[in-house]
């Protein structure tokens, strides 16, 4: 499963190399031209450039942690990279640095906590990574300041048709994009696998400037809240109802012409879709839409529960429907 292979790789913002390499390998033998730019985006062209020039984009990076200090005790202090809820971190397994040193995020055990401690959630400052090193020297032999830590989670199928894993945001988008690039029926478009989306769509700024497309479709993963305690009107998206079309978020107002086309495409092809019923959050679309003289931009996302945590859950049928919708939209543009 492409999603599982991609999601299992470490690729915290700024450290996307392994993901990029895997994508390049997966495209071997495909009739595409590829190049990597100065900040690590992978720019891909499939077939001759057409008018309008269409660019698809998915981001390679995931949220994670960075080691910022090594304590005398051998514990590692860290800072979050991207939006992480500090309450989900304690007792989670991580891998640190290029050598994937195993560790666990430690905190004061329940027995040693004062009454007050138990009433307030852990903050980043209360937590540390324990790699089983007896002192600073031992730790320094294994890791260094600036190393990234990723959640140590292997993607696993669960239930009927669901997947559990880390980094589905946005390796799910990368998997869709790879599938489309490998599809022999599709040609005449550009694709970018961007870096550093989670810390401000930094890769998308330079990638879209370099490609100067006329139209861009961002393939994302978005939060679902179809869980106990949240009414449908505030769930944003739900699993199993197909790809979510954004209408607006903090970064972009989706181009109405493209949105109308995507809806018509889904209806014609008999594909499920839903609207993302939330206008917060941002994606690469914000940066792409403002590149150069401006780009018509839309966003299609696979809904996913518990994103930005060590274990998110998505439904495989949603992922497939996302790929099918983007494919049908590309083919529709050729008519």
């Amino acid at each position, binding site marked *: 499963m492409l999603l599982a292979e991609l999601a299992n790789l470490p690729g915290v913002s700024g450290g996307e190399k392994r993901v990029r390499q895997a994508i390049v390998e997966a495209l071997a033998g495909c009739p595409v031209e590829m190049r990597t730019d100065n900040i690590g985006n992978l720019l891909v062209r499939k077939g001759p450039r057409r008018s309008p020039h269409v660019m698809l984009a998915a981001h390679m990076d995931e949220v994670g942690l960075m080691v910022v200090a090594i304590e005398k005790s051998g514990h590692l202090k860290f800072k979050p990279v991207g939006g992480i809820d500090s309450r989900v971190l304690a007792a989670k397994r991580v891998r640190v640095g290029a050598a994937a040193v195993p560790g666990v995020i430690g905190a004061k055990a329940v027995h040693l906590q004062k009454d007050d401690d138990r009433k307030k959630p852990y903050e980043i400052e209360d937590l540390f990574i324990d790699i089983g090193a007896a002192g600073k020297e031992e730790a320094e032999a294994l890791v260094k300041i600036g190393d990234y830590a990723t959640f140590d989670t292997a993607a696993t199928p669960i239930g009927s048709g669901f997947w559990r894993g880390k980094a589905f945001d946005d390796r799910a988008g990368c998997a869709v994009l790879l599938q489309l690039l490998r599809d022999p029926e599709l040609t005449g478009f550009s694709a970018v696998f961007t870096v550093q989306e989670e810390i401000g769509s930094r890769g998308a700024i330079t990638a879209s400037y370099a490609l100067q497309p*006329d139209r861009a479709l961002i393939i994302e993963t978005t939060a679902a809240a179809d869980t106990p305690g949240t009414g*449908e*009107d*505030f769930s944003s998206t739900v699993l199993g109802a197909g790809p979510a079309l954004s*209408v*607006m978020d903090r970064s972009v*107002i*989706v181009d*109405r012409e493209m*949105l109308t086309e995507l809806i018509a495409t889904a209806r014609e092809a008999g594909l499920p879709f839903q*609207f993302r*019923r*939330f*206008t917060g959050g941002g994606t690469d679309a914000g940066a792409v*839409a*403002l*590149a*150069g*003289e*401006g*780009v*018509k931009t839309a966003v299609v996302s696979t809904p996913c529960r518990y994103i930005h945590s060590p274990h998110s859950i998505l439904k495989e049928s949603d992922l497939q429907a996302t790929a099918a919708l983007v494919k049908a939209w590309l083919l529709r543009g050729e008519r």
Partner: protein
Amino acid sequence: MEALLKKLTETFGPSGEEAAVRTLIEAEIKDSVDRIFTDNLGNLFALREGAGPAIMLSAHMDEIGVIITHIDEHGFMRLAPVGGMAPHLLIGQRLRFRDGRVATVYHEKLKSLRDLEWSKLYLDGGAAAAPPENPVAVGDLACFDQPFQRAGGRYLAKALDDRAGCALLIETARRLPRELPHTVCFVFSVQEEVGLRGATTAAYRLKPAYGLAVDVTRVGDTPKAPVMAVSLGQGPAIKIKDSSVICHPLVRRFMIDTAAELGIPYQLEVLERGGTDAGAIHLSREGVPSGVLSIPCRYIHTPSEMVDAGDMEHALTLLVKLCSKPWPAL
């Protein structure tokens, strides 16, 4: 000016859906310019060719509004802000969609109005059903539904921010002399209220030598208002700075000197919070020396914004002169 301002402010145009405003402006300005075109984001460019390098004048077409995020089986719609909209201003307001349908806003039962937040509000458009029976869809935008009115020497309307600027640009185009020392490009930008987005791509495309935004600004002349040295009726304001731009001293000086030469009243504006298209223009490419001409405006981002008729006339006189003179070299 008054008739034009009425048409402009009563037109539907929240950020992202400026098409109706664009169509209106195109019709109003096309006979006064040499070239007219749009771009991918929907900005409207209207160009007068001149001898020297281009001056970009920018006024934004978009207004604040709301967006539909969910429609329940009874037809009640949930909403989120587009631009700097305050939830308490919406209660009991009439809102209008692109196709002219109207709806009103109310809130769920609250213990106190202090508990009011966006998630407690809903829109009622009179349809007792979910889509497709309900003609509204998730993603539809709505804006205030308010008539333009004259109140004493002042104008009251929704969306004077920044249709007042749009009106000034159109009227300026109509009054320009035959020969111009500079190419003047009137830009009617999109999506200013959500982050100066239209002006960003417009300035990139035009690569102007100078930038001048025309927009409304806050005032300090109402009961117990935060201190600000700008009042209604004291003339247009020449911006010194806001949170998006520090106006280029040469442009600022040029504007002040021109106002003095014309003998029209003007005020100097320091806006502590807020920004305008000049914030995007001055950072375009290698940098563009930019300034802002502001129209003092009370009750910005409410259904009843207020500007002074005299301020508008003086602003027009100043703008026509600014476009007819050679600008200082850097």
